[in-house]
């Protein structure tokens, strides 16, 4: 599947139907992350020109006029693209989020933009890049994306007190208060970069 075919599928009515059974943002993101086409696009975004392509797609879709009676038909695609850029390229993600926030009559895209512009990086725990588990699932799971430097830390499986610490560490605010478990501390020391799930 080519990059263009992947974006066409993500922008299709069937894709929208499949992931919009969700009633909340987290379930929606999970549904998106589980789709095979999203895995394909995620791998394509390893290349900077492809990330530019997707960003351009966001900019174009967010400027399109829509029927004022109905929800923006590209809401799901915008959300998926902004989220993938958020995982792969934080600077592009912020640009994309600002564009998506201005797109008319969106639902999920607005929420995604809210997370990125007001709260920080957003990650989903569907683990589309899971290859190696380094901890008992009852406390936390660390996944290393194959061939990539980034790590996805499934923070929403951590105790609440660890979630906020992990998130603050990522944003550079603090990583020592409140104290966290030795297991989590070891991962934080080993990881070059990661994206934390907002609590």
């Amino acid at each position, binding site marked *: 599947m080519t990059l263009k075919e992947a974006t066409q599928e993500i922008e299709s009515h069937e894709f929208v139907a499949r992931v919009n*059974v*969700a009633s*909340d943002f987290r379930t929606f993101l*999970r549904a998106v992350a589980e789709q095979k086409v999203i895995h394909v696009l995620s791998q394509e975004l390893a290349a900077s020109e492809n990330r530019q392509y997707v960003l351009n797609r966001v900019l174009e879709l967010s400027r399109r006029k829509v029927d004022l009676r*109905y*929800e923006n038909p590209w809401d799901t695609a915008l959300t998926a693209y902004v989220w993938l850029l958020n995982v792969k390229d934080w600077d592009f993600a912020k640009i994309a989020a600002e564009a998506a*926030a201005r797109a008319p009559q969106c639902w999920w895209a607005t929420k995604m933009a809210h997370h990125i512009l007001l709260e920080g990086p957003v990650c989903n725990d569907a683990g589309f890049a899971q290859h190696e588990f380094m901890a008992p699932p009852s406390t936390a799971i660390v996944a290393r994306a194959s061939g990539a430097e980034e790590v996805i830390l499934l923070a929403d*499986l951590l105790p609440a007190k660890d979630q906020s610490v992990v998130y603050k560490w990522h944003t550079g605010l603090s990583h020592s208060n409140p104290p966290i478990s030795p297991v989590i501390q070891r991962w934080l020391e080993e990881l070059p970069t990661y994206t934390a799930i907002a609590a």
Partner: protein
Amino acid sequence: MGIVIGAGGANDRAALPLATRRGTHIPNEKRKESAPVQRRASAELWKKERPNARLRSATAVYNCMGLVFASRRTWIDPVHLKTILKEDEYRQIAGPQEAQIGDIVVYENRRDRSVSHIGMIVEIVPKIDLPSWEITIMSKWGADGEYLHIVDDVPSQLGKPATYWTDRRLP
């Protein structure tokens, strides 16, 4: 368009005035209807993948929580379910064996057991040959349709039936 801070909250004029029995505002947001072409695509998809589910209504303006707690008027995030169940004086029942029509089934995500969906029981038929019940649920599948379906016949994204709740009072 922009980002509304505190969307759905008590100070959001676009939110419906919705509250629990104790008067706590239930945050809610109204979602625009999907275009007819999208609603048709959704109906076609689930007709193919969940052929035994019966479509009652094709609309995006409410979700599963909005169906059960807001008369199909708005979207309520499942994160507020715990508050609603508590303040509307629901009690958990043991399972389908105690359930009656009008009771609620809560679905949980298979991995982390977060609430992913809810539905209302509309029919219970005993299955004498295997001692169990065939429970029919009325539930809203996100922005896709409102369906009548057997309790575990839902898209995988909606999780599995986990707990049963009732607001019934004994005389």
